């Protein structure tokens, strides 16, 4: 069965400022995809913008899926105007998501800004394993999913740029201070999603301590299927497609 489908908008709720939660009902049955995978969504039926946009899956509930997004440009602005009952064309689920093995004990999650979208999906999948979540946002109001995390039994270690919640400053510095030798044992694995500078600084840290880490990357895409070669990222093994080999990569593979 092919992955091109229509989905009906159940709700498109503004959470705060420019952050929205879109709930979609796929008009054909899809098996629940693993965390970190994504959909290409049509944001408008016209010719500008022309291409679909990639969005990671935030939650999957009762056959519906949710997209948590921040309005960042024309495409997401148009998406924010979608109303209940509207139909959106989608392709997915696509890409390789977070692959959490069974043997790891300490799981550390790191989210920056809207990077919480797929990190929450992972947290929900592995909540029984009591992951430690580090979550940085610009300001308190933009700290999303806190209640949902709480119901999973996860209380994130927070940082904000303006100090309105948690420690003031960037989340990687907070994480560095927080982690002790015991939590930095060799069987700990880090899964992260967030802005480029955050992931780069995480990568320096994990390299220094010899830790395993995986990051979900974001990139402009035309097709999402692996054919346009537009979304590549530079890795130690040459250019790799974020849509096909990713979006989750071992962090030490990426050349920042």
């Amino acid at each position, binding site marked *: 069965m*092919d*992955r*091109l489908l229509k989905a009906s908008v159940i709700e498109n709720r503004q959470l705060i400022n420019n952050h929205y939660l879109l709930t979609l009902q796929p008009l054909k049955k899809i098996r629940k995809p693993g965390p970190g995978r994504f959909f290409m969504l049509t944001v408008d039926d016209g*010719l*500008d*913008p*022309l*291409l*679909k946009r990639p969005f990671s899956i935030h939650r999957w509930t009762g056959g519906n899926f949710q997209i948590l997004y921040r309005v960042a440009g024309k495409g997401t602005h148009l998406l924010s105007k979608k109303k209940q009952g509207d139909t959106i*064309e989608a*392709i997915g689920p696509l890409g390789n998501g977070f692959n959490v093995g069974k043997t790891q004990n300490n799981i550390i999650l790191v989210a920056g800004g809207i990077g919480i979208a797929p990190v929450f999906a992972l947290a929900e999948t592995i909540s029984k394993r009591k992951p430690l979540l580090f979550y940085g946002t610009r300001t308190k109001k933009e700290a999303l999913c806190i209640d949902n995390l709480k119901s999973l039994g996860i209380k994130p270690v927070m940082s904000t740029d303006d100090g309105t919640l948690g420690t003031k400053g960037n989340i990687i510095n907070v994480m560095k201070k927080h982690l002790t030798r015991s939590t930095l044992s060799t069987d700990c694995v880090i899964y992260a999603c967030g802005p480029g500078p955050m992931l780069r600084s995480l990568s320096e840290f994990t390299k220094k301590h010899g830790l395993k880490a995986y990051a979900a990357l974001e*990139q*402009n*895409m*035309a*097709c999402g*299927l*692996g*054919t*346009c*070669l*537009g*979304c*590549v*990222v*530079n890795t130690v093994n*040459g*250019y790799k497609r974020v849509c096909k080999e990713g979006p989750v990569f071992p962090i030490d593979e990426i050349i920042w």
Partner: protein
Amino acid sequence: MTGKKTIDLKVNLGKLRLKNPVMTASGTFGYGEEYSEFIDINKLGAVVVKGLSLKPKQGNPPPRIVETPAGMLNAIGLQNIGIENFINKKLPFLKQFDTPVIVNFFGDSIAEYVKAAGILNSAKGIHALEMNISCPNKQAGWSIFGTDPKVTFKVVSQVRKATDLTLIVKLSPNVTDIGLMAKTAEDAGADAVSLINTLTGMAIDIKSRKPKLANITGGLSGPAVRPVAVRMVWECYKTVKIPVIGMGGILSAEDAIEFILAGASAVAVGTGNFINPRTTMDIMEGIECFMADNGIKSVKELTGAVQC
């Protein structure tokens, strides 16, 4: 009304017979595998694969694409797996379909073009070659293959000697006289010309004052280029006797028919594959419906039928 059963969609490109005029444009369809999930490749007029060179190429650094109004700029930089890998690893997949495989290829010198054509000519399962002399993302100096008629004649006539497969020359729109370029390809022995490749363009981020593409410039495709492409197909149709393959922002059957009326014997869908992987199928069905509704028996009747 003409019944759908009596509708003849067959077209010829040189000695190549296509069951219908809808092809894929090089670089937008990979080597077919990714799209087989969405469409029946058997139904396509032809598959044109991502451009190949003698050796694998890693392409340009990212960012490689940027969206522009009704279009996109790309500077992929001809990333490809190389001819040998294609023949060994990708061609077997395409061979299982009853659809001609057209291999797009390029070189950095006339000698490389000739060598590549020779290797492809002896591989089984390839039905035609499309010579890319028109990528806008190659290094300075390369563009002479597609913009200097003397060099175009030389490279096409040399490749002509190296292959007896149907030879299509893909033309650059970044020239003053596209008709002259088509005529040059025809005189050098091409069996068909295809156009347009992308138009060289540029986009700038006004906050950072930096180009949006790492390569600075890229090739514009999508509906934004369509009127330019239709005009160029029309000019080529008037100038040459060999078939013209039209492409440039085709998203619907109406777009495809516009190209055919301008003079295209066949059309190729490029950026449209990215927007919706089923675009080629929808176009094919739409052309058939248009013909049925308008009492047109053979699609060949429409080629060049614009009344100016």
